[in-house]
């Protein structure tokens, strides 16, 4: 019995795959109704489902699949042509099949009468009224067939520009071969079938037209000899081709590539088809340039069977050899590979130490070899867990089509990077957020066709999904060319909902206003539709993405469209973490919770209020707990740093002894005996194999941070972005003597670097890092009129902006201080320019207040065309907020900034 169940599982699984490809291909077919590859593939899918279901005796599935198969076979043979209604019918049939396959036993309960009847009607219609097989249908393919033939020798062939471009790209020559098959058989003793096989062996047949010579009158139909005209592409030169095929050169007409190239260029979407398509064979005139009116379907004639008119391989569906593997097995493999890496490290150390005898060189080379093999082994195993994005992106064809129809909007989906690979669990976790974003784009983003035309845009809207690898992460974008989001409307909405006061709202910058969309309970849709607009949208998207260790950004221009950028780690198993030290032991804090690291004292002292300790920071009181106390470790540590940890609705500080490093850690589970200690979420191995326990910030806060303080934190959390009456600015010098300032809100971190770490690539200075990303260095003097730094710097600072600009570092020569600067003191008139907010008087000197993102925008639009592939040049490589920070604070001079954002 278990064998049966196994077979059954296999059936459900396989049919599921067929149904998926069926659906995807049907959608593609809708835009390209005569693509024979697609038709074939759809036919095959239906056929496989029918066959497998028949094996198990699922009658309802078999019946439905059978009618569909019959219709598909007519479509495939070109006897009927699909119009919009038929496609809708076929898609809904595939839906019904999917429902049935989800529960094959209960397939009978699913009503599919409409579909069956509709498909049967198509079949009946065809067989009943044969003389007029498809009078209305040729209208459908007409729009794309509307271009003339590029060359007289090609009259009567059907082909598309796409196939020509492919051949032209490979430098093929194109020929029209005119051959009397009967005579050819007589002279060379070669049957037509064999001749075509030979043709295919030296090139690709683009199309074949068969005709009956005019001499073959009706009386002599029995022994007529068919004339074949073949549109053929090959790499062979004309004089070789004749010899290779054993036919006379006069039967071959070369079609000049230049002509075809011009034609394909001017009609990129074009396709040629015989003027009148009919399944009747009509006699052709025996003239120098015959004008056959026969359809490709003549290939069915005896003697020339099985000629595939377009054997152009479709690379997308290239069947790669795959097997199914249990994910658990992959995890074990991954672990083993990790073990090998650690073993390798020990071996390397040993080989490096060396005993000084003669074997050392040999040992060294062996260790090197093992080392490189181990690295690639780990890499390969890691990749085995990855899946291409294509599978996930594929389903959006359907969503876009359905929603577009429902909302009566003409929407085109563009997909880029569907071969980018991502961890399986991440792909699963992305499905919902992406669906939501795409829906939003269609529902709210893209305007109605009328409005679009009025705005001077093409009537059809475009939604674009793209995925790309950037700096060891994956960046996914959902963008549309719709109406964009109006920051003013968002502000008004926020005020209306009582989330902000009118006064607060008026002070938000456009970018801050756009970020309001991620706040809970916020929906901008004027009316709640059944598609979106209930206000549980973007905040859920944000939470879900952050759960996956990702980051969401939104960028929108009114009237131009919206772009949402998601950045994800390649795999879930690796988490960026901050390693802190407490009483000599190392602990890992998930970077996603780390908001800021503060060295208490001076401006931000730790105070005691009624037994609770709080940190006074920028006018806020933040509850503080000591890691040593929580862990019951002995007192007497240094308690030097406070790590501010952001939880969902609160923020608190954790006192630790030291900040050790930032690492990408692999999370390992703890044994069950240790799960009673719920302040740990796991453990990880650091570089030399030592263990660091991973702290779980929510559990640490649990019961220790009073609820009242949590509430205080939550109101603060919103204000962090909105309270901009005054903001803290970092004051520094960048070469010249003039002080410059930048808002701390724009700064991710400040690092001290030495000139020795700089490498120059082309005209770009890069900071080589020990992690897998590099930082591009920018001088303020390149963008705004300030003094340039001395090139012979020994030590200097870099100011790294917040993501998405985190891979850029601005060079500063001296960090002066950080001060609170009320907005009202920033004078925006005199010195304002792109990249400069304005000026203010700080410490008695006129100081420029800079806008880092604006500076980068200005730079990247001119200087970095290569990086614009995905993001139109606005974003440089992505930033990983966790990386590149080894000893964040120790290297800062003491008088400088006591607070320090991460």
């Amino acid at each position: 019995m278990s064998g049966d169940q196994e077979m059954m599982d296999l059936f459900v699984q396989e049919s599921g795959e067929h149904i998926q490809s069926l659906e995807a291909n049907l959608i593609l077919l809708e835009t390209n109704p005569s693509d024979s590859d697609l038709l074939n593939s759809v036919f095959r899918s239906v056929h496989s489902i029918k066959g497998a279901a028949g094996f198990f005796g699922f009658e309802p599935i078999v019946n439905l699949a059978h009618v569909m198969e019959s219709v598909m076979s007519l479509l495939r043979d070109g006897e009927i042509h699909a119009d919009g209604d038929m496609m809708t019918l076929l898609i809904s049939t595939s839906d019904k099949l999917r429902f049935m396959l989800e529960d094959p036993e209960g397939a009978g309960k699913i009503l599919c009468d409409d579909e069956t009847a509709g498909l049967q009607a198509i079949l009946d219609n065809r067989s009943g009224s044969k003389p007029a097989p498809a009078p209305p249908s040729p209208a459908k393919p007409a729009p794309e067939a509307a271009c003339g033939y590029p060359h007289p020798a090609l009259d009567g062939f059907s082909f598309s520009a796409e196939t020509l471009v492919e051949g032209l790209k490979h430098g093929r020559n194109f020929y029209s071969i005119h051959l009397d098959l009967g005579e050819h058989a007589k002279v060379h003793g070669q049957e037509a079938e064999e001749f075509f096989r030979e043709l295919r062996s030296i090139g690709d047949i683009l199309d074949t037209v068969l005709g009956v010579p005019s001499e073959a009158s009706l009386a002599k139909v029995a022994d007529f000899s068919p004339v074949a005209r073949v549109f053929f592409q090959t790499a062979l030169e004309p004089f070789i081709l004749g010899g290779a095929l054993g036919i006379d050169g006069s039967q071959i007409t070369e079609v000049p590539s230049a002509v075809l190239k011009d034609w394909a260029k001017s009609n990129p979407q074009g396709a040629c088809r015989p003027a009148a398509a009919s399944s009747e064979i009509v006699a052709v005139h025996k003239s120098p340039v015959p004008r056959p009116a026969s359809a490709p379907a003549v290939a069915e004639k005896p003697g020339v069977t099985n000629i595939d008119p377009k054997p152009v391989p479709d690379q997308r569906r290239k069947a790669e050899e795959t097997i199914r593997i249990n994910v658990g097995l992959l995890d074990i493999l991954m672990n083993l590979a990790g073990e090998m890496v650690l073993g390798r490290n020990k071996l390397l150390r040993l080989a490096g130490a060396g005993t000084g005898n003669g074997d050392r060189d040999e040992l060294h080379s062996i260790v090197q070899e093992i080392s490189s093999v181990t690295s690639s082994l780990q890499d390969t195993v890691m990749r085995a867990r990855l899946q291409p994005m294509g599978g996930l992106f594929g389903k959006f064809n359907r969503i876009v089509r359905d929603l577009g129809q429902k909302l009566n909007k003409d929407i085109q989906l563009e997909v880029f990077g569907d071969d980018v690979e991502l961890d399986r669990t991440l792909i699963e976790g992305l499905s919902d957020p992406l669906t939501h974003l795409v829906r939003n784009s269609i529902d709210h983003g893209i305007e109605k066709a009328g409005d679009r035309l009025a705005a001077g845009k093409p009537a059809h809207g475009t939604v674009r999904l793209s995925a790309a690898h950037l700096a060891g992460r994956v960046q996914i974008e959902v963008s549309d060319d719709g109406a964009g989001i109006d920051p003013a409307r968002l502000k008004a909405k926020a005020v209306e909902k009582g989330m902000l006061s009118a006064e607060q709202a008026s002070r938000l910058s456009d970018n801050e206003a756009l970020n309001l969309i991620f706040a809970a309970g916020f929906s901008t849709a004027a009316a709640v539709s059944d598609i979106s607009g209930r206000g549980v949208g973007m905040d859920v998207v944000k939470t879900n993405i952050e759960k996956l260790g990702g980051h969401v950004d939104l960028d929108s221009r009114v009237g131009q469209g919206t772009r949402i950028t998601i950045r994800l780690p390649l795999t879930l198993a690796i988490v960026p973490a901050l390693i802190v030290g407490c009483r000599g032991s190392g602990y890992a804090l998930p970077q996603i919770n780390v908001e800021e690291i503060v060295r208490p004292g001076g401006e931000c002292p730790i105070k005691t209020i009624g037994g609770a300790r709080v940190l006074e920071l920028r006018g806020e009181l933040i509850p503080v707990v000591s890691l040593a106390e929580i862990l019951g470790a002995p007192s007497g540590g240094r308690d030097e740093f406070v790590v501010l940890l952001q939880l969902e609705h609160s923020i608190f500080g954790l006192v630790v002894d030291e900040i050790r490093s930032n690492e990408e850690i692999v999370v390992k589970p703890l044994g069950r005996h240790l799960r009673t200690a719920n302040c740990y979420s796991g453990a990880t191995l650091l570089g030399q194999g030592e263990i660091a326990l991973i702290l779980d910030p929510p559990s640490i806060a649990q019961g220790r941070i009073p609820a009242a303080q949590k509430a205080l934190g939550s109101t603060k959390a919103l204000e962090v972005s909105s309270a901009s009456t005054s903001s803290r600015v970092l004051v520094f010098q960048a070469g010249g003597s003039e002080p410059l300032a930048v808002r701390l809100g724009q700064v991710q971190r400040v690092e001290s670097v030495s000139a020795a770490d700089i490498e120059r690539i082309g005209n770009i200075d890069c900071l080589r890092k020990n992690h897998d990303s590099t930082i591009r260095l920018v001088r303020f003097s390149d963008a705004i009129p300030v003094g340039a730094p001395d090139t012979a710097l020994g030590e200097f600072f870099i100011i790294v902006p917040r993501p998405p600009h985190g891979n850029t570092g601005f060079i500063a020569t001296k960090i002066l201080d950080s001060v609170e600067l009320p907005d009202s003191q920033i004078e925006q008139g005199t010195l304002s320019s792109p990249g400069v907010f304005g000026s203010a008087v700080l410490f008695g000197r006129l100081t420029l207040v800079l806008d880092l993102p604006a500076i980068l925008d200005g730079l990247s639009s001119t200087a970095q065309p290569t990086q614009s592939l995905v993001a139109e040049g606005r974003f440089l490589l992505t930033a990983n907020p966790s990386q590149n920070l080894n000893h964040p604070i120790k290297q800062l001079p003491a008088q400088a900034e006591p607070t320090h954002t991460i």
Partner: protein
Amino acid sequence: MSQLVPLQTPGQSFKSQLLCFESGGQRYACDLLWVKEVLRSPVVTPVRLAPDYVRGVIHLRGHILTALDLEVRLGQPQGESAGANRCIVFKTSADLLRLSNPPKECEAADSDPIGVLVDAIGDILPPETSILPAPPEALSGLDSRFIAGVISDGGELVMVLRVGALVSIVETRKSRTE
């Protein structure tokens, strides 16, 4: 399996090989089938807030091994931790699944590695060693849930441990249900 094996009751014999070891001056033994390997001089990272019988965690080739303190687990005061230079690693549930003839109480195994810290490893005793009932808890001071019985090896008494109970999450003392 087909051979006639007497019921595994104390006072009979132990059907598989036993690994002897020493901890805190006392000799112990456990079913060899449970043992995956023995680590020499393991580096134990202490874990704060962990149960008292957990000495810490050990890095075992990419896995995190929970290292138990045998004495505390058996209900005795913590011994001198100066020794403990061996760690007996027990098989995980995945390891045991591969055995055609798994040891007793193998369902108690965890999916993450676990081991006990001991002072020294001794001999391996042959199968069918005759085994005596454990002394009453009141006399030995050892939590009898973890003791399968006692064997006499060369005139010395060896406590035979029930590894299944050791590695499972039963509370120490008090909450006894047996």
